């Protein structure tokens, strides 16, 4: 009905996304939490009391101290210690680093791979499209956790192997979303208008079309990073993800699993809460982005 809309939401999809997040107090808090967690992961090691993987500073006598417990040398462990006498707080900050690194890297690589293949499928059409989309169907038809599990069972443990497995199970989601968006945009008159104006194919593809396909990418990208972090933790928990030398939050939780029933809850509970905070914050932001950027809902608001 209204022929005009406000001037404030004009500048591209990123600005629209940011404005949308800031209009929701809940999402704003979550976004701030994401930023803080990221900062903690980056600068954290210089802030925490010990390097939890320096065996020289560990004292087995300090093992399994409850939160607030005092070590042999008088150090107070705020969140307790694990079975090796490691400070939980320090271990968690290191774990957060690993978890975020794996999750963000896997998400970004999957996004790039998926976007390129999705765009190629939409534009090449015909046989190339069929082949790419059949592979996408195959990937999306199988449960991601199962595929990742199998890959790692075959490949063995390791950071890069986990990233590879996560990319392999996640790229298809991006490819399908980008292809879908591109096929819709491709049929709009502005693409024909661009062809009438004698623009080259790459200019039309990347200069005119891609910017209009970004909305679903941003939403899925956000949610998939959360997904990747969660999946990595699960794989590590099952003992087939990261090696014991590079523990993520998932592995920390697994370490506490055996002693959970004997009442030493903190070894599992605190890393779990941190993991939950990470995934929850990202998902809140992602959900808000979906609300703001989903054209089917946004048009009517």
């Amino acid at each position: 009905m209204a022929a005009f809309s406000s001037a404030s939401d004009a500048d591209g999809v990123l600005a629209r996304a940011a404005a949308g997040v800031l209009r929701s107090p809940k999402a704003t808090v979550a976004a701030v939490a994401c930023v803080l967690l990221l900062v903690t992961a980056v600068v954290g090691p210089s802030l925490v009391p010990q390097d939890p993987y320096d065996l020289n500073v560990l004292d087995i006598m300090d093992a399994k101290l409850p939160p607030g417990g005092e070590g042999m040398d008088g150090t107070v462990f705020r969140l307790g210690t694990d079975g090796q006498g490691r400070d939980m707080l320090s271990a968690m900050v290191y774990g957060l680093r690993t978890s975020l690194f794996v999750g963000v890297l896997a998400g970004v690589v999957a996004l790039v791979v998926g976007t390129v293949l999705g765009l190629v499928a939409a534009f090449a059409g015909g046989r190339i499209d069929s082949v790419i989309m059949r592979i996408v169907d195959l990937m999306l038809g199988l449960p991601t956790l199962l595929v990742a599990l199998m890959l790692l069972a075959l490949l063995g443990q390791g950071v890069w192997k986990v990233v590879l497995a996560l990319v392999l199970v996640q790229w298809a989601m991006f490819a399908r979303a980008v292809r879908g968006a591109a096929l819709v945009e491709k049929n709009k008159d502005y693409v024909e208008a661009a062809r009438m104006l004698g623009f080259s194919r790459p200019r039309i593809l990347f200069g005119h079309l891609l910017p209009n396909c970004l909305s679903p990418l941003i939403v899925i990208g956000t949610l998939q990073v959360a997904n990747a972090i969660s999946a990595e933790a699960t794989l590590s928990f099952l003992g087939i993800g990261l090696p014991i030398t590079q523990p993520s939050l998932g592995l920390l939780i697994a370490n506490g699993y055996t002693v959970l029933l004997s009442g030493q809850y903190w070894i599992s509970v605190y890393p779990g809460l941190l993991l939950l905070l990470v995934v929850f914050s990202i998902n809140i932001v992602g959900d808000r982005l979906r609300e703001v950027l989903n054209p089917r809902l946004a048009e009517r608001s």
Partner: protein
Amino acid sequence: MTAPLLDVRDLRTQFGTGVRAVKAVDGVSFTVDRGEILGLVGESGSGKSITGFSILGLIEPPGRIEGGRILFMGEDLVGAPREALRRIRGKRIAMIFQDPMMTLNPVLTIGTQMVEAVLAHDAVPRRTAVERARDALGLVGIPSPDERLKAYPHQFSGGMRQRVAIAIALLHRPDLVIADEPTTALDVTIQSQILYEVRRLADAFGMALVWISHDLGVVAGLADRVAVMYAGRIVETGTVDDVLDRPAHPYTRGLMDALPATAVPGDRLRPIPGMAPLPTSRPDGCPFRTRCFAATDACRAEPVVTVAAGHEWRCHHPIREPAA
């Protein structure tokens, strides 16, 4: 003179609240007599569709009816309980929508959608409801109605779907049908078929009709009376002949003049200058004054409605032309 079938008085419908509120319908008054066809004409954003939806109580949040009365056979529909409104909708007042491709649920059969409309108001056995649905399809010229009841909307063309929508509207022989641009999405030949059926059925059942349209030509051919809307208000009402042959409001006159059909081919058309003001920033006084050739300072004041022998206008400087 008996009371009109529908008497809308000072209807105000707005979307949102506060300074950003959009006054879509801003003090609209009109009447419809039994069996009368009223053409409600206006350009996009004039509030004509919202007026139609307001009558049926189909305005959804953030929209709401701010004020005024909608007297239907003496009963005020504004503020009526939901259940009372529901009993009137589809039974006494029916509605036909603009886009025939969108008004029927794609996953339910035509039969289901017709039978449920019967059963919503009449506690009759299913068999009777099916028979009534079939008869209604036959009435609007759909061949082999028995089979078509089992079909899904996507198996019908646009014109046929609009016939189905009309059949549904006629199921309860309503006193009033509100038709919101029902032929705009259709081709000329199909539009003509629908208009033919509508005219025939309205005559046969003595239904009153509010025909909402942007197309003056369609309204001229169909309606008894015309109400012209601009910026949420009715600016002129009267018989078709009065309004179209002797327009009093400069806006009505402008609309007529802008039609290519009224000009000599190849000559410049005479459009109304400028464009309709946004609902959020309408000028005070007469909302048309910023585009009006006759506007003076007097137009900053709210124009009042002048009535002369059934012809009404809302203008400080009406066009006075000798009656033809």
